[in-house]
């Protein structure tokens, strides 16, 4: 707690990314893509979002810097998980990136209204998949004051 009684946001570790994804195939593709583009990231995976906020708060260590959140999961779906994460001020430092195959405007609006930091379409093609994931990670690492993960890696022309 801070002096004025507000709950302080926990510190985050920008080199850690938590992937909340029930599809094994998608989790594997995310791992393959990010290992290639950001070898220094530490990836963690969970297949369900039930009680995620409590699980995160239960650990003493720093929080992961980013959560990649699937929307369609059995049990607590992405919307519920998002709401639960945003209900906890201690988790305010988490960057929540919704990563889903839907492009429905209503879905996007709902996620942004519920406090998602990004809403990223999950493409079918792997090259594109890797490109958008890299774009999301680079964007947020830069926005949160971290140099790009692979400094000096060749510039894409």
């Amino acid at each position, binding site marked *: 707690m801070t002096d004025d009684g507000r709950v302080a946001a926990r510190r985050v570790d920008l080199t850690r990314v938590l992937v909340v994804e029930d599809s094994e195939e998608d989790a594997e593709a995310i791992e393959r893509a990010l290992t*290639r*583009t950001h*070898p220094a990231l530490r990836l963690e995976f969970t297949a369900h979002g039930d009680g995620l906020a409590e699980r995160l708060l239960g650990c003493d260590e720093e929080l992961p810097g980013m959560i990649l959140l699937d929307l369609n999961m059995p049990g607590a779906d992405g919307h519920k998980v998002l709401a639960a994460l945003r209900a906890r001020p201690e988790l305010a430092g988490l960057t929540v990136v919704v990563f889903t195959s839907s*492009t*429905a*405007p209503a879905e*996007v609006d709902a*996620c*942004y209204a519920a*406090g*998602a*930091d*990004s*809403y*990223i*379409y999950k*493409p*079918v*093609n792997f*090259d*594109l998949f*890797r*490109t*958008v994931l890299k*774009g*999301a990670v*680079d*964007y947020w690492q*830069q*926005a949160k004051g971290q*140099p790009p993960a*692979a*400094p*000096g*890696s*060749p*510039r*894409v*022309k």
Partner: protein
Amino acid sequence: MVEPGTDVPARAGAPFDGWAAWLHRLWRVGTDAGDVTALASLVYEALLDDPGVTVVAGARWERGRSSYVRHRGRGDTEVTTLPGCDHTEGPCAPPPLDDGPTLLLIRPDDPEMLLPCPGGSALRDAGAAAVVRCVFELGDGDRAALWVGAGREPGAPWVARTGERLRQIADVLTVSNQRILESQEHERRQAMDAFLAEASLQLAGSLDVEETLRRVARMAVPAVAEGCMVHLADFRGTLSAVAVAHMASDAQVRLREVAEDDPWLAKELLRGAERRHGLVLTGEDLEGGPFGPGAPGPAVRAMSVSPLTARNRALGTLTFLYSRDSADADRPLLTDLAGRAALAIDTSTLYEQRRRHVEQLQRHLLPPGLPDCPGLALSAAYQVADDSLDVGGDFYDAVRVGDRLAVFIGDVCGRGAEAAAFTGLARHTLRTLLENGTSPAGALARLNGALIAQRASRFVTALVAVLTPRDDGTWRVRVANAGHPLPHVARAGGEVVAVPAQGMLLGVVRQAAYRSVSVTLGPGDALVLHTDGLAEARAADGSFFEDRLPEAVARCVDADGGGADGLIGEAARFRVSGDDDTAVVIVQVEGER
């Protein structure tokens, strides 16, 4: 991560053999490294293998600015990497380069002992008494340098040998860098092809223009850029924002405001809309606008505006905001994407227009309502086969003439505007004739003549029934048929019989003659007219609705059977194939069933 491996002989005293093995290893790693970071740690390890070396440093410049500085001293366990700086003078500026790698021996008191400012005096701090520096080109004007420091004043052979090693490393790094650039470019192109394919599917698959554009804008971030806006022009050419997407939710809120009413943006959009390949704004082009330096929100490095033009019509603009560098390389992609989007927008706008026209036409072809006729209850229903654009060819109407009622139903073969023209002709001709008291057979003969005179290229079927009340409460029904499916009479007792009225199709034979047959309807009896879409509805097992038509007819005229709607509904539930339009008209004599 590449760990310096066990296959590297690290025997002191045999540096030459050791170096050959290191170099071999470097080439191998260099041919499949995904980025140069993996290679860097190996380079530093290799150079520090020489016991005379106390410190190794490296730096890189992209477009004249240092992008990072690395160093590792003998006592360090790993390479320290620092982000570059924006300074362009002194040690921060890229060092000069002659043809090929250039070497320089630097003494401790030389100002060149300093690295670009993030690295500062790391060389001196690590105890270097002299440094050999090698500067080399990485392609595309990017430059890199490596420094190797010796703890004490080195002899000429050491300087020569170290210089040679640095040149060899520069070769590996240059080639590897080139390969990485090419493979990243290849991957980028693959990804953009895939993006176009997925976006095109989205564009082709939907008819709601604005929703489709919102979806495509969403797919484009961050595949193409971090922000995307689509503006469409109204009939006066005024642009308004229909889709806004940004990587970051807070940035999207702001982008929407800018998209809707920022005067600077409005001006640039108009400028971009007028150019065939649009425009790309970078650096100072962006100054003074909502994305210029110092503006709130994420930094924008470039903005592209592509005109949406289809069939020579300016439809609007497609705008991207890049947090990364220049959008120029993506120009072909932007032109391609804008072209596809414009075509899709134009097509669905035309489609929407045409669909409205068809709906209006369809309303004209069917009667706005059915007349009231004492003693009779009328119901009619019409179902269009699918949501395709074409106007159906079915028609029906009912006309009251004194105490009599004339009803008719018909079908023009085919769909579309031409069929609609004949549908209109047939309905209005029959209606006018019947209003004038023409008999069913006479009305069909006159319509046949009219169609032949019009050189109708389509067949028309029609069936006319005129109901005349009798004093005993029954109705006499005269039915004449021109090639139309037989009507049914559903008796109050539940029996259903077809009325055997036969006749030639209309519009085929000039002299075709029509004769009417008569039936009597008692209280509760019903006459059921339908078009062939009803009988031809087909179930999954291949059976036709025709086989169960009598039972269905009996059911629908029951008190709670739903009348014409009920009958069509039953056929619709039955149907898996057979997608003709269906019309049903039912006239039922009041009375107990």
